[in-house]
């Protein structure tokens, strides 16, 4: 097996009296889609927040391409190749769709106060480069007609798509998607599945996917990790995890489907 893109090593996270993560370990391989499932409050989003350095784990380590992330500040994570979406949307509502996505490309182009204020050639070159990339992503996710609309005025599903586009603009090697299918109907979920697969195949990147929509997780994932009360309770192929008794009891309800 090739070396993993990211390894989560015995990560624990405590908030006051609550142990949100309790010694979680697993690997994300190259070009893998790893599904992360578990009941509400199991610690999935907390793990995302640890991966993107918004939280510092109480103990344990997180490696990206073999190097620890923990010494890195949160703003450097995008440049290191981790892009993410947020469970409850964290867009910039008063900015246009295009600008929101461009913010995702912030670390991808050079620039600073002085060269921007003076419109130095390198700032202009960067801006053109960003326009090009964002244009491509906008086309890919079919947001072209909305590019100049304010994000805050768009329906929920569309906002989720903008967030995905913004995450792609960071040019990630590991993409973290937190419940991308929430609030979508069947048709839209199927469509989303296609989009995610295309993203992985087109960019040859790894994806960590948190999702309660079992159909989507099971059809997309190469590997599934199940959490409960901050602990890993099962791991393996979708079929194996789905058949796991503990997962069925804690998460799916009743017996395994």
């Amino acid at each position: 097996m090739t070396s993993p893109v990211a390894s989560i090593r015995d990560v624990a996270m405590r908030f006051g009296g609550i142990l949100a993560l309790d010694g979680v370990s697993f690997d994300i391989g190259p070009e893998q889609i790893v599904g992360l499932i578990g009941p509400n409050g199991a610690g999935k989003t907390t793990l995302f927040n640890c991966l993107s350095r918004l939280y510092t784990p109480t103990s344990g380590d997180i490696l990206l391409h073999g190097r620890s992330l923990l010494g890195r500040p949160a703003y450097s994570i995008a440049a290191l190749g981790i892009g993410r979406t947020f469970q409850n949307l964290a867009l910039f509502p008063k900015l246009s769709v295009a600008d929101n996505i461009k913010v995702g490309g912030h670390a991808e182009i050079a620039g600073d106060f002085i060269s921007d204020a003076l419109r130095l050639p390198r700032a202009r070159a960067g801006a053109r480069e960003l326009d090009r990339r964002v244009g491509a992503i906008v086309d890919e996710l079919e947001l072209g007609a909305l590019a100049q609309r304010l994000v805050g005025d768009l329906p929920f599903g569309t906002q989720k798509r903008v967030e995905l586009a913004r995450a792609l603009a960071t040019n990630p090697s590991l993409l973290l998607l937190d419940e991308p299918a929430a609030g979508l109907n069947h048709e839209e979920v199927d469509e989303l599945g296609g989009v995610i697969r295309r993203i992985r195949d087109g960019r040859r990147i790894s994806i960590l996917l948190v999702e309660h929509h079992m159909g989507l997780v099971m059809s997309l994932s190469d590997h599934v990790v199940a959490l409960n009360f901050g602990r890993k309770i099962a791991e393996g192929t979708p079929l194996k995890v789905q058949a796991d008794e503990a997962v069925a009891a804690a998460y799916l309800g009743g017996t395994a489907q």
Partner: protein
Amino acid sequence: MTIERTTALVFLICALAVPAMISGFVTFQLTMLLIYAIAIMGLNLLTGFNGQFSLGHSAFYAIGAYTAAILMDQFGIGYIWTLPAAGLVCFAVGFLFGFPALRLEGTYLALATFGLAVATPQILKLTPLEHWTGGVQGVFVMKPNAPFGLPLTSDQWLYYLTLAAFVLLYVLAKNLVTSRTGRALLAIRENPIAAQSMGINVSLYKTLTFGVSAAYTGIAGALGAIVIQFVAPDSFGFMLSVTFLVGVVVGGIAWLPGAIIGAAFILFVPNFAEDISKGLSGAVYGIIMILLIYVMPSGAGGIVSSALRVLRSR
């Protein structure tokens, strides 16, 4: 874009032509207007674009003014050079103040900056600093004449100098806010956590913005000192900060051209209120402010942007 370009061009032509048609006094007033507009633009960069609230910009205005006055008075440095110097000093002070400000938000930040505004006149009066600051008496500044034998009065020359500074600073600010940096500033205002996850060094941007904003206001302060020819601690009280803030809101939050409108408001409306009633000028000013906010809750910028939207949707 074309509407904006045309307006800017017309503005610039008018601004260049106008001193020939008006008296020295009105020229002086317009100079003050431009100076306040620079200060308001600086505050808008911080508060309007970056969402950091400041009631402390009178302090930066004061530091800029004193930097200019002391450099001229004690070190005999030419007035032109005091402008970049004031900008640099204020940038440094603002940048440093930006660090504690990082930990504070909204109302708490407002109070910290409020403290800065209140403390500044007292520090300027400080006995150990009297040698430089002139203590409570302040410092005099010589009024410069037009250089190179230009056929301009001193008022006109200062007006053109200020206009040049304004245009330069406006263009820089405009470039900044429409660039990658400007997007980062707005993103931080809208959602700092998301901004961080998208690769924006939030702390650095916030402190730098504090510095840049302070530098703008400081340059305005230096120009103010040169034009007024005098600085004294009590000119820079907390009410000056409030005045700038009023200017930002009236002009429009996060809308740069609003600086001119805001400056005109804070410069002319008090005079107008005084014309209506001497005894109640403060109250009249207050009522005008309230009525204005009723008519344009988002300032002139709000009106203009909705007008533009209507125009474009046609």
